[in-house]
């Protein structure tokens, strides 16, 4: 009696009512798995008994490609991992190689990097907010979010000619200096954005349905979060006050004043609040940085051909999704011997199985949304 037309899977147990547990394949083509994620759910009614994430549909072998490109050539590839936060990916890679070379970018480059990365964080969080809201059924916030994101992308476009996969930085500094009016435009955006965040919060934060859908959903305790290696807003939502920008400052973050927002209960609602506050803080960093971009060169002293000494380095930054690390092993040639990318989405996603157990199907999409994954980065 176990294998029926509906369940179709042998070994599926029967529940009290005589109704089978059914297996639901969520994805790889599904509107709210944020890409080609496939979650195999075992359901009792609509409650999740068991689940398994199946990933790799977008695997492109980025790490393998890295071994066959020179250090400079590989830089644009990292933009294709977390394609909604390409600038952050680039920053992590450039700084890792700089660390390997023992070089350092000049201050002006560092400040511009900080500004662009924070703008990228805002844009990534905006996209997260919009899609997360859509997952939970609120259609409208997405369009407001995209409106503001558009402004950021315009700044990117003016700066380096690309909107999404920007390849904005070079190893050792920047390729382009800021354009005329960069400061003014960024400042205008930032001053405006303060009110925009309030606008989004008006739509959702106090909304009873929103609270009912997110509070107590996908709870991840601080201990679990650390055990599962969750980073970024997921870790902070669980109440761990840890941000690489503060713990191990890179770029020019040590110069600026900002807070690390944390949550209390580690549920979807707290992670939502954390990300909302993070947007405000990023905005604050931008406003501070834009006031005072030091003059000077934009490129540090690195040779035309990069030949780092033998050795290895691990460098990580606080990407919008969490800790984005690059572990690069050099054998003294112009090509990296091994590039390992520690993708925050991949490791945050690992906690999914734990978080959705016992929840309903509707919560699965909320929890996938709150993890803020990008499959390009999960699968690399």
């Amino acid at each position, binding site marked *: 009696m176990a294998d*029926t037309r509906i369940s179709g899977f042998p070994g599926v147990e029967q529940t009290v*009512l*005589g109704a089978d547990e059914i297996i639901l394949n969520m994805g790889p083509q599904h509107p709210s798995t944020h890409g080609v994620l496939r979650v195999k759910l075992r359901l009792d009614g609509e409650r999740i008994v068991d689940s398994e994430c199946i990933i790799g549909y977008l695997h492109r072998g980025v790490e393998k490609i890295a071994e066959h490109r020179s250090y400079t050539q590989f830089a644009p590839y990292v933009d294709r991992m977390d394609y909604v936060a390409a600038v952050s990916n680039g920053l992590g890679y450039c700084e890792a190689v700089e660390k390997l070379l023992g070089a350092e970018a000049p201050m002006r480059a560092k400040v511009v990097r900080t500004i662009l990365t924070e703008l990228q964080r805002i844009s990534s969080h905006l996209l997260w907010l919009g899609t997360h809201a859509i997952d939970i059924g609120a259609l409208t916030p997405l369009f407001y979010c995209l409106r503001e994101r558009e402004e950021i992308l315009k700044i990117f476009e003016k700066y380096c000619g690309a909107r999404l996969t920007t390849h904005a930085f070079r190893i050792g500094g920047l390729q382009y200096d800021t354009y005329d009016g960069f400061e003014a435009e960024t400042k205008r955006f930032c001053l405006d954005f303060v009110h925009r965040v309030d606008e989004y919060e008006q739509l959702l934060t106090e909304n009873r349905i929103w609270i009912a859908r997110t509070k107590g959903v996908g709870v991840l305790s601080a201990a679990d979060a650390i055990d599962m290696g969750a980073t970024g807003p997921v870790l902070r939502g669980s109440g761990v006050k840890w941000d690489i920008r503060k713990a191990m400052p890179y770029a020019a973050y040590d110069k600026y004043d900002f807070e690390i927002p944390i949550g209390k209960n580690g549920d979807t609602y707290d992670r939502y609040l954390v990300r909302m506050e993070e947007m405000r803080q990023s905005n604050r960093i931008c406003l501070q940085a834009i006031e005072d971009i030091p003059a000077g060169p934009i490129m540090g002293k690195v040779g035309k051909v990069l030949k780092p000494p033998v050795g290895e380095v691990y460098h990580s930054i606080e990407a919008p999704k969490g800790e984005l690390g690059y572990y690069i092993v050099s054998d003294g040639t112009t090509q990296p011997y091994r590039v390992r990318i520690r993708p925050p989405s991949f490791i945050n996603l690992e906690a999914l199985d734990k978080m959705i157990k016992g929840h309903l199907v509707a919560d699965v999409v909320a929890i996938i949304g709150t993890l803020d994954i990008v499959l390009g980065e999960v699968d690399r």
Partner: protein
Amino acid sequence: MTPEQFSQIAFYFFAGLAVLGAIGTVTARNVVHSAIFLITSLLATAGIFLTLGAQFVFAVQIILYVGGIMVLFIFVIMLVNLDVALHQLQFNRQRWVAGLLTLVLASQLGFAIWFARGEGSLDIPAGRTGTLSPQNVEQFGLALFEKYALPFEIASVLLLVALIGAVVMTKKRA
């Protein structure tokens, strides 16, 4: 075409549909198909009520049987195993007993019709359809709550008891 003819055509149409639906219900192999046939049969019965001018009963028949009970039927059918029915024997070995029973019932019915013939009790005179007052909802309500108030209330209490009983039985013991 007079209204009488029209309503007669309607009656035979609905009656035929009801019988066909009933046959389909017991012969269909797929449970969901059975349910669909049953719905057809019930709807046809509702149609017969309409030809008799019993508009209220018609509406209640649809709301309760078609819109309520059958929805629950299908709901339950979907929850439980379907393949079981498909692999089971359609008509089992009790067919001789069933046939005998059918025969007895049919003969009873036949006798009843035969004896009642001509006495008017079962014969629906033509044109009767229009005689029910168009205000039959009001009449229905008045009859139910004045003349038959006590039986009505007793029936309600009985249903309530059944309802509570069902809840108690399905609720798991803590």
